[in-house]
């Protein structure tokens, strides 16, 4: 595996040659196409799903709440997001240890969108040879037409992608309506263009360069590899020495290996590498070379698998081990974290309370020989329906609460602020003490929460 030494080569402005991956069919390419359809389908369809009268998945940033089907998450639930990111990272480690860069080949947005842009390019400009011929040809009416048609497809698809992305943060129905009337808000317009533009540049032009220069995962994935990790590899022992041969000749007698040196594996590679040079960090494990080589092996009548998914141990003819300490540790941690996450998110406390002291007065001595402090109590109702809450206080003998009415209503997903007067007998306290302010739903006693506050009294 090459390290950092590859980074600084090349002149400052020397142009890069575009890579034209040749289209190939085969079992892994059909799997990748299926994965792309499923993932893109999920991405483009989810914002349109409805749940209980509103968008099923909506990260409502202006209102500071995330809707995920029946679940509403608040900024206070931020640690769930952190938890989820840890689970995602650990899954990546686990699958990398197990089967190498599965993520890169089948699920990475960069790969999936690049693949989609390649389909559009092939649809308009034809196969690899036709594309290269078109690129070399002088400008003509036909070239202009084909290039314009490709740009039209790319730009339309990018804008739709940007629109869908913003649809995760703004109700997508309203967004579609406002676009139809050209009345989109400035930030919505900006983010549609920003994400659409990023898609266009990343998938249309930068492509494999993103994996080569910009992706940190490509650099540190080797740390998760061991001798039992599945990688895409060329069987050098079987293939070498490579060379062209006539079908009638006994190539083994001539001392040749199974590789006919047709270079199809290089032509199909989206990163332009030669897999026969060994494992390289540019390889995104798309398995195009496997399908290509299998097809050639079928044609010449040799067994398949000259290029294949295998492990280092497998290549050396040793036993393959899926269960090993590394994968077991990852799997156990992953199972624990996922179970904990599921339990915690279904059993989380649906109400919260925040108690803030009124800034204007420290305390008030009342004619009825009590001392009064004023607080602003914020009741957070994370439940999907409205509840009626009772507020109580404790911590000082004889403490009573008065808040105008006997109960407070908080709607679903609402933060209800209410000014609360707390009184204690004059002789109960000198100076200050901590008190607890509790809320409890009248119709669901399990919905309760307690907040802490400081009560101040004269100290003479």
């Amino acid at each position, binding site marked *: 595996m090459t390290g950092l030494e590859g980074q600084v080569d090349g002149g400052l402005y020397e142009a*890069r040659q575009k*890579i034209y991956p040749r289209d190939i069919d085969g079992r892994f390419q059909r799997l990748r196409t299926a994965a792309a359809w499923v993932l893109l389908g999920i991405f483009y369809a989810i914002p349109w799903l409805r749940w209980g009268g509103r968008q099923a998945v909506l990260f409502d940033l202006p209102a500071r709440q995330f809707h995920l089907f029946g679940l509403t998450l608040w900024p206070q639930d931020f640690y769930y997001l952190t938890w989820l990111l840890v689970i995602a990272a650990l899954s990546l480690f686990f699958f990398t240890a197990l089967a190498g860069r599965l993520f890169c080949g089948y699920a990475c947005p960069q790969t999936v969108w690049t693949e989609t842009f390649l389909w559009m390019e092939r649809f308009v400009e034809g196969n690899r040879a036709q594309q290269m011929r078109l690129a070399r040809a002088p400008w003509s009416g036909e070239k202009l037409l084909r290039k314009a048609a490709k740009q039209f497809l790319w730009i339309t698809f990018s804008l739709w992608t940007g629109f869908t992305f913003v649809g995760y943060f703004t109700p997508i129905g309203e967004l579609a309506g406002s676009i139809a009337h050209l009345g989109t808000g400035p*930030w919505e317009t900006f983010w549609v263009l920003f994400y659409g533009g990023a898609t266009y540049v990343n998938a249309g032009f930068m492509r494999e360069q993103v994996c080569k220069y910009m992706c940190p995962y490509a650099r540190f994935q080797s740390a998760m590899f061991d001798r039992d990790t599945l990688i895409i590899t060329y069987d050098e022992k079987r293939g070498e020495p490579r060379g062209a041969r006539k079908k009638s000749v006994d190539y083994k007698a001539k001392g040749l290996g199974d590789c006919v040196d047709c*270079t199809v594996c290089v032509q199909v590679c989206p990163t332009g590498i030669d897999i026969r040079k060994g494992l390289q960090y540019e390889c995104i494990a798309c398995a195009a070379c496997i399908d290509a080589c299998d097809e050639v092996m079928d044609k010449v009548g040799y067994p398949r698998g000259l290029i294949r998914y295998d492990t280092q141990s497998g290549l050396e003819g040793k036993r393959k081990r899926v269960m090993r300490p590394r994968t077991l540790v990852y799997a156990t941690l992953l199972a624990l974290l996922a179970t904990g996450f599921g339990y915690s998110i279904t059993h989380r406390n649906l109400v919260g309370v925040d108690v803030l002291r009124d800034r204007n007065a420290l305390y008030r001595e009342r004619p009825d020989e009590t001392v009064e402090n004023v607080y602003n109590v914020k009741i957070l109702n994370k439940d999907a329906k409205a509840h009626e809450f009772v507020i109580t206080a404790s911590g000082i003998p004889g403490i009573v609460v008065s808040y105008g009415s006997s109960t407070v209503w908080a709607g679903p997903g609402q933060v209800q602020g209410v000014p609360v007067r707390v009184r204690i007998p004059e002789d109960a306290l000198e100076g200050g003490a901590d008190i607890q302010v509790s809320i409890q739903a009248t119709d669901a006693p399990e919905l309760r929460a307690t907040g802490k506050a400081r009560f101040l009294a004269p100290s003479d």
Partner: protein
Amino acid sequence: MFGAHRPEYAGKLRWPRLGQDVAIVLWPSFLVASVATMVCFAFLDPALVGNDDYPPPAFSTRMTGYAVGFFFFWLVSTLSSLLTLYLVRTAHPDAPERDKAADGNRGDG
């Protein structure tokens, strides 16, 4: 490597240096800025930033607050990446050998 073989690509398959530099400065800082924005605004509501009576105009709405925050973080992390890249690129390439030679001289003396 294994004898004569027709190269599939005659030209460079890598980006020019300038392209690499722009990419490795802007992209990691974008990732870091995204995370920083998420963490920052999970705890900070841009609608509550500033004096109650005079909110800074940049934070007139939450969406503006988020966007200003994101681009601020991106700018800061870009500057940091840029400095790191500059230091890496301008490091004397044979510095380790010179250090070794100096040690050797001391040992001989």
